[in-house]
């Protein structure tokens, strides 16, 4: 029951974010906002799919590929959005710090592969590594101004919340509010709201 309520809350927040992003994409005729809209809608589609499986069939999907595809797409749209709002700085790619992201993602992917599916975790690990690398790279980028730092910072927080969510799902399985999985999921839901000002600042920079 908690999972259904929590999913419904996330869907509600994402629908609001999607409507705002679509409005901005149309109003400002902006590709960045269009990518943001795809990011939100893609995520909410994965959530809706998961929720309707729970509601109509009283079970999670036997093969979770459809929801996963939706969430892969969300990560890709997020990455494309980050690229679109970035200024190139060839010097920053030579720094070591951004590589901590892919390294962390690779380590976590191995950990999750030992506990579950291989291909799925490999894809999630690769996408997360890419997002972490790009966001850290942009945060330390010399040409990035203050307004442009909000989006990569938000993406970094978002990725870390995702990892918190996944790790807690490995160790806690109870369907109660004491389960940290739900705390992380609520934080993730709240984080979607913070994407809106971050994207606005990145677009206006």
């Amino acid at each position, binding site marked *: 029951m908690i999972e259904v309520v929590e999913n419904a809350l996330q869907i509600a927040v994402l629908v609001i974010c999607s409507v705002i992003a679509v409005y901005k*994409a*149309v109003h400002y*005729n*902006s*590709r*960045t906002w*269009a*990518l943001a809209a*795809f990011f939100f*809608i*893609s995520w909410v*589609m*994965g959530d*809706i*799919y998961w929720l*309707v*499986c729970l509601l*109509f069939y009283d079970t999670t*999907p*036997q*093969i979770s*590929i*459809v*929801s996963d*595809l*939706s969430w*892969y*797409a969300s990560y*890709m*749209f997020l*990455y*494309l959005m980050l*690229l*679109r709002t970035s200024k190139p700085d060839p010097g920053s790619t030579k720094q070591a710090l951004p590589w901590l992201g892919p390294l962390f993602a690779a380590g976590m992917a191995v950990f999750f592969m030992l506990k579950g599916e291989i291909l799925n975790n490999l894809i999630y690990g690769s996408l997360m590594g890419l997002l972490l690398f790009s966001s850290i790279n942009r945060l330390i980028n010399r040409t990035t101004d203050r307004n442009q730092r909000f989006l990569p910072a938000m993406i970094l927080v978002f990725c870390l919340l995702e990892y918190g969510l996944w790790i807690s799902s490995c160790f806690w399985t109870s369907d109660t509010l004491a389960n940290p999985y739900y705390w992380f999921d609520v934080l993730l839901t709240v984080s979607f709201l913070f994407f809106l000002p971050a994207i606005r600042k990145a677009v206006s920079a």
Partner: protein
Amino acid sequence: MIYIENIYICLAAPLFLAILCLRRDGRRSLIFVLAGMSACLLSAYVSTYLAGAAGIDQATASYEISPAVEEIMKSLPLLFFILVFEPERRFVRSGTLLVAVGFATFENVCFLTSYGTSDLLSLVIRGFGTGAMHVVCGMIVSIGLFYLWDRIWLRVVGTFALLCFVTTFHAVFNIFVSQTGVIFWIGSLIPLSAVLVYLLFFRGRTAKP
């Protein structure tokens, strides 16, 4: 059990003859419709095989396997058209929609053969709902292909992301229309509403950076 290859031959034969007789735009349009129908036929084979390999029943496969297979199969003729002929945008956009129309038409004919033609209201809802769903998926992919990204590698990543996106949309639609009553109506109305929103607000607009 129905023999969809027989239905396919019956539907494709007049189209094939018309393709031989027509020239330029008319011929191109019918080739797209035929490609959509062929994609639907192949999707049925691939989905059935994958469902058997994964050990799941057809009803479950309709929302867990078929959406991904159908969207990938629908995109293949378009990718071939884009990569080989390097066409203008308008041809790709109309091609995407015509492939979707061919796909939906063949799927609806197979549905009619399986479930009969007695309930007009359900068939009207089914016709508009399924048709709109395939058209919406086609529109989303075509918008993404040409309006969202300007560099080729962005287009590759973005198109894959859009395929993932439309697959989920398709899967959610399939779950809704496999229910009865209000849920079926809501499911059928979602893509129709999306088409209406597109026609009212987005038609003729293109995004800038």
